[in-house]
């Protein structure tokens, strides 16, 4: 059965999946136009789904394949050497998608999951706010009940893919009289609804992978609630767990300019492999990159054996961010003074990746937050003494509630 699946996956990938040169979605979108890239990705996702390789572990009644994590592992192994043009769906499937599978109502799962898998609808995740990043539970976006609807007001930031998303999973405060974690709910919001405004945020690389999103009296129906009212923090924890595991186990494809193979070839091309320091750094990068992959594999095997990774997903996230930073430093050493000034496109791509590397340690929960989670939930250390955990949110006078 698993052997069949592997053979089928291998054959399908060889026949259908492109082995592309290095490049990121944003850079590609800027050169070829967003619409063209998106159309190609939607077409590919539809093909992937039709062939039976999307939603491998999701239930068949919601468009998934109803298979186990063994097949998921096989798929990850087989697809590793391809750059699948599915970037627009990564967030939707791994975060809101997995959360809906876990917490959604039957009606929500029937309505949304099949179209997520087939690439017809793209999703984003709306958690962070200008005043609530690591401390996301201090968020200020509000949802006020009005008859059969909720009315959303507020601002979200760092929203990947909001500019082309059809739906989003949003956290909003539904009861400010409760302590900050206990008065939050999660909703499905139609990103095309009146009152939703998306503006791109330009980051250090010069690209705009993120957006800020404004909600101005946006109405969502009562059945758009994911999980229970005022239990949005629990839903957020579920989604963040999926996010960490997704980011931590994403692996680095061999076409990533900071992957070991790419940097070894770059070093050879620049004549830097005679330098013992560079050789040792590259060998160490290989070792660390390999360990991150193996740890992801180990977590998956444990899941398959019935031992859930829980907070150890944060180890994968932290390790992946650390690896990115190390790879960035080593890439800079390989380039030497070529990083200061270059005219080759190849060097531009590496340099952009080096500049982008610190972002991994911020997005999806900073490395500092991951260390808190690991310390508290893996090692059982005491929680940070928070002054704001038990006070009703509307009586707090710290953080986003500080009075000017």
């Amino acid at each position, binding site marked *: 059965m698993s052997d069949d699946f592997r053979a089928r996956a291998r054959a399908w990938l060889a026949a259908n999946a492109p082995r592309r040169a290095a490049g990121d979605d944003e850079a590609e979108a800027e050169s070829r136009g967003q619409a063209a890239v998106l159309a190609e990705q939607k077409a590919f996702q539809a093909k992937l789904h039709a062939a039976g390789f999307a939603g491998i572990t999701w239930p068949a009644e919601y468009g998934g394949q109803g298979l186990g994590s063994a097949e998921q592992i096989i798929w990850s192994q087989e697809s590793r050497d391809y750059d699948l043009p599915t970037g627009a769906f990564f967030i939707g499937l791994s975060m809101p998608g997995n959360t809906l599978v876990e917490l959604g109502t039957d009606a929500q799962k029937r309505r949304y999951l099949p179209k997520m898998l087939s690439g017809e609808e793209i999703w984003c995740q709306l958690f962070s706010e200008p005043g609530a990043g690591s401390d996301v539970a201090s968020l200020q976006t509000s949802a006020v009940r009005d008859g059969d609807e909720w009315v959303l007001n507020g601002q979200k930031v760092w929203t990947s893919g909001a500019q082309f998303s059809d739906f989003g999973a949003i956290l909003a405060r539904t009861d400010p009289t409760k302590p900050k974690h206990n008065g939050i709910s999660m909703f499905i919001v139609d990103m095309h609804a009146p009152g939703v405004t998306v503006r791109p945020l330009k980051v250090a690389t010069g690209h705009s992978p993120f957006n800020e999103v404004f909600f101005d009296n946006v109405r969502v129906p009562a059945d758009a609630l994911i999980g229970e009212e005022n239990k949005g923090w629990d839903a957020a924890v579920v989604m963040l767990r999926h996010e960490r595991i997704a980011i931590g186990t994403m692996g680095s494809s061999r076409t990533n300019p900071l992957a*070991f193979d790419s940097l*070894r070839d770059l*070093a*050879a091309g620049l004549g830097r*492999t005679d330098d*013992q320091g560079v*050789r*040792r750094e*590259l*060998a*160490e990068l*290989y*070792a*660390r990159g*390999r*360990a*991150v992959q*193996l*740890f992801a*594999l*180990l977590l998956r*095997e*444990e899941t398959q*054996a019935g031992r859930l990774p829980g907070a*150890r997903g944060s*180890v994968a996230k*932290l*390790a992946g961010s*650390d690896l990115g930073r190390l790879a960035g430093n080593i890439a800079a050493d390989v380039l030497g003074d070529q990083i200061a000034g270059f005219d080759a496109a190849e060097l531009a791509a590496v340099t952009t990746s080096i500049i982008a590397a610190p972002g991994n340690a911020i997005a999806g929960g900073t490395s*500092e937050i*991951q*260390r*808190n989670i*690991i*310390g*508290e939930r*893996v*090692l*059982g*250390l*005491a*929680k*940070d*003494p928070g002054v704001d955990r038990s006070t009703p949110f509307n009586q707090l006078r710290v953080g986003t509630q500080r009075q000017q």
Partner: protein
Amino acid sequence: MTLILTDEELALADSVRKFVADRSPLTSLRQLIASGEPYDAGVWKQLTAQLGLAGLTIPESYGGVGAGYSALSVALTELGGGLVASPLLACVLAAEVLLQLDDDAAKDELLPRIAGGELIATLAVASSAGGRVTAAGAGDGSVVSGAVLTGSVSPVLNGTEADVLLVPADGSDGRTVIYLVDGGADGLSRTRLTAVDHSRSLARVALAGTPGRALTGDAAAALSAAADLANLALAAESAGAMKACLDMTSAYARIRVAFGQPIGAFQAVKHRLADMEKSWELGNAALRDAARAGDEKPDRFSVAASVARVLLAGAYADAAVDTVQLHGGIGFTWEHDAHLYYKNGLSNKVLLGGPGEQLDRLADSLGI
């Protein structure tokens, strides 16, 4: 190939862990320090006769258990966690060299006795800076059955206690041959070194016209296989010891109170422990891969074992220093166990080729 432990491996880990807790707790290492004995002969007898650990990688046809590298790594992880002093690593590496050579007489003669714990054997190799031995009377490309060996190697695992030594030596033709040297041979002197790690007995082995019996087979390949196995073994011991440091220090951070809080509540402490947990998880995953590769994917074993060693050698040494630091003053006392791990970490990092040498070897294998 799966990374997680099989039921048999979990059972082996369990029995070795129980043995360590009952028969070789850290208090018994302190007794060894006081007595000056290199290891507890009673413990060694039980490790071999009762648990069969010296024969884990020796096939049944030579009196071993034939359980393989992964089983060995599981046992060494538990022994490493308890800093159990024994000549197991020395014997395992010597057995590996014999198994890789094609000298059937030597295999028949030595392997069953090593497997049974009756014979302590060691491989007289150290890092590249540890000295070389030359062979006279050998060479000219002709196979000779014996030679006279001269030179010195240090540090050699259990060099003082070994009944037999396997000594690689260069002939006048530059070719390396491995010689079998008896512990009582003429001109052989063994000097016990002051070992930084209290759980390791190390010696300078000096040969002055010492007779050795040449073993037939590809010496370079055998030494390379032993280097790979040494990487796996030291990675396994380090993983166990690092986990002991992590558990010990986390436990302390949960109960030690300062400024009205358990110290683990403070991020300065919490984040260091989180990093230690992360490094252990990564090293452990690499160790599992190397152990499996040893049994199932021999062509990947060398690189996988290097990866595990490179990661765990550094991570454990750092974790051991953090263990001292996070315990504060008490962690720096002789009575506390932290220094035992700190010293073991310093030693494990460099034995049989330190980080730089490992990275150079890995770089060669990776085509850098």
